[in-house]
């Protein structure tokens, strides 16, 4: 025992662990730690913050971002990006509102909204993979513009009032103090978790992000995997469209402006890497919650609304800096491994 401790000390270990691996473990739970700190600080400053009513409020406001973030995570895991989700959200809300004007059926409206999102996602995926475009940034930038334009054109630039009861419930209904949308998010998060960690397809998503050429040589259907994540991202934009339209009881072409940046920020705050193959569902949800909590907290504390984007920007920088530090620690970890072996 004494010998082991001396041995550890000689190797610069802390309690049997190397400093880099301790650092890496801390960074792994970094997003959760950050959220805990932010929640603690705000709850001390504002007595209202942790009331059930306000928590329900935060969850309701975060639902759409969280759904977008779940899908954006899968896209980013494959080294991609989907900039079109905010516009797709608006397009699906507009389509839903206009379908509702002629067909008074909740399920059909929802189906139309989900189909709209999925269609945009399929276009993104197909153009990226079969159009051999250099980066999904370009394709989804184009559909960001086109889908928003289509939403404006279809709606005549005006919000269309009215959504079916079931859509309103999904967007704004409460079970006790918890919004229905929270259960929807929880369900989708569980599905995404199962897909990414338990199914072969999820393993392929990580493999394609970790080493695209290696994945091709390992006979993984790389094209199919890439298309699938954009289709899922489009579908998620449809779901976020349902939540947003239900919450506001309307379909407007101005919905979801810059929502794609919230989704990307959530994923990045959750520690995912733009280099692909790194990130997980729980942390992406934490990232989405972080954005919701910061906005809500600053509103409660009467901080100037213009300061909110600055704070969120700083949080993104901290998250990226943590990722840089992680890279350095991993390098040191490798060196230690090499010396020891």
């Amino acid at each position, binding site marked *: 025992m004494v010998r082991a401790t001396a041995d550890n000390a000689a190797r610069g270990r802390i309690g049997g662990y190397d400093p880099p691996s301790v650092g890496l473990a801390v960074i792994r739970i970094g997003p959760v730690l950050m959220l805990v700190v932010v929640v603690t600080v705000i709850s001390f400053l504002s007595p209202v913050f942790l009331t059930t009513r306000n928590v329900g409020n935060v969850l309701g406001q975060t639902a759409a971002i969280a759904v977008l973030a779940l899908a954006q995570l899968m896209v980013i895991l494959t080294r991609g990006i989907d900039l079109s989700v905010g516009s797709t959200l608006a397009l699906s809300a507009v389509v839903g509102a206009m379908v509702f004007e002629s067909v008074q059926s909740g399920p059909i409206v929802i189906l139309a909204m989900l189909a709209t999102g999925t269609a945009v996602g399929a276009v993104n995926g197909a153009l990226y993979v079969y159009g051999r475009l250099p980066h999904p940034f370009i394709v989804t930038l184009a559909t960001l513009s086109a889908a928003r334009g289509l939403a404006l054109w279809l709606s005549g630039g005006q919000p269309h009032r009215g959504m079916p009861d079931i859509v309103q419930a999904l967007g704004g209904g409460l079970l006790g103090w918890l919004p229905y949308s929270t259960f929807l998010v929880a369900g989708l998060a569980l599905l995404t978790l199962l897909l990414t960690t*338990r*199914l*072969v*397809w999820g*393993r*392929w998503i*990580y*493999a394609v*992000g*970790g*080493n695209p*050429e*290696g*994945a*091709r*040589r*390992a*006979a*993984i*259907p790389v094209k*199919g995997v890439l298309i699938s994540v954009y289709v899922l991202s489009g579908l998620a934009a449809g779901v976020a469209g349902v939540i947003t339209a239900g919450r506001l009881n309307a379909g407007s072409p101005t919905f979801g402006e810059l929502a794609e940046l919230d989704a990307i920020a959530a994923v990045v705050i959750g520690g995912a890497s733009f280099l*692909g*193959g*790194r990130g997980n569902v729980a942390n992406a949800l934490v990232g989405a919650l972080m954005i919701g909590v910061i906005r809500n907290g600053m509103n409660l504390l009467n901080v100037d609304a213009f300061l909110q984007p600055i704070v969120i920007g700083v949080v993104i920088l901290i998250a990226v800096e943590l990722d840089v530090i992680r890279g350095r620690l*991993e390098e040191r*970890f*490798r*060196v230690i*491994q*090499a010396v*020891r*072996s």
Partner: protein
Amino acid sequence: MTAAADVRMTQAHMNAPPALTVRGATKRFGAVVALDGVDLTVRRGEVLALLGDNGAGKSTLIKCVSGVHRFDSGSVEMNGVPVEVTSPAVARTLGIETVYQDLALFDNLDPAANFYAGRETAGPRWLPRGLRVLRRGPMVETTADVLKRLQVGVADARTTVGLMSGGQRQAIAVARAAAFATNVVILDEPTAALGVRESRRVLDLILRLRDEGHAIVVISHAMDHVMEIADKAVVMRRGRMVGEEIPRPENRQKIVSLIVGGDD
């Protein structure tokens, strides 16, 4: 294995048809002739070194054999049976495993996930492959068994390979090939970028694979390593085979001059 058994096994391998035979292989990339009528034969229990300067066509040859590229013309036989290697997936089913120079490992995955990438153990079988549920237990166990059998030490089997040293990573890539190759293991520069001690381990690992009866093709620029482990050295230049030698200290100079083409 006793020496006698070793000899018997080698004789059995000599009498059997070669694990891999390539005949008259050609490959062009536009105007560039990468392979110009190449023949290659490798038997079980044999290490064949594929030598040549940069651009000689070594990498093109092995990429064609492992299904990444396709030959324009020529034939491939495995164990005496004609085959068409049309894709990396087909190469895998034929029992050809390749360790690429640029390490086709997934840094973000652990050793077991790397071993089984693209051939995951999963079920139930009636579902499409991608929708099957991963059976992690058997994959982790088999990986641990193979690593143990080949004496590849890994501190923690759950660590992603990105966190391992260059030597450990190369050993895992070689062990992965060994685990699934039923016919041929192809290694592209297996000791490049490795230290002396790490190279030693990888070379020992290759010899262990040979003793297990694999047919092995090694591309290497490290002449010392070639002299040590290869049973046969084949030299390529400008897309052609220009010589075949048994690597011995006395003909080392001859091999080197074949590579650089000093006799032109």
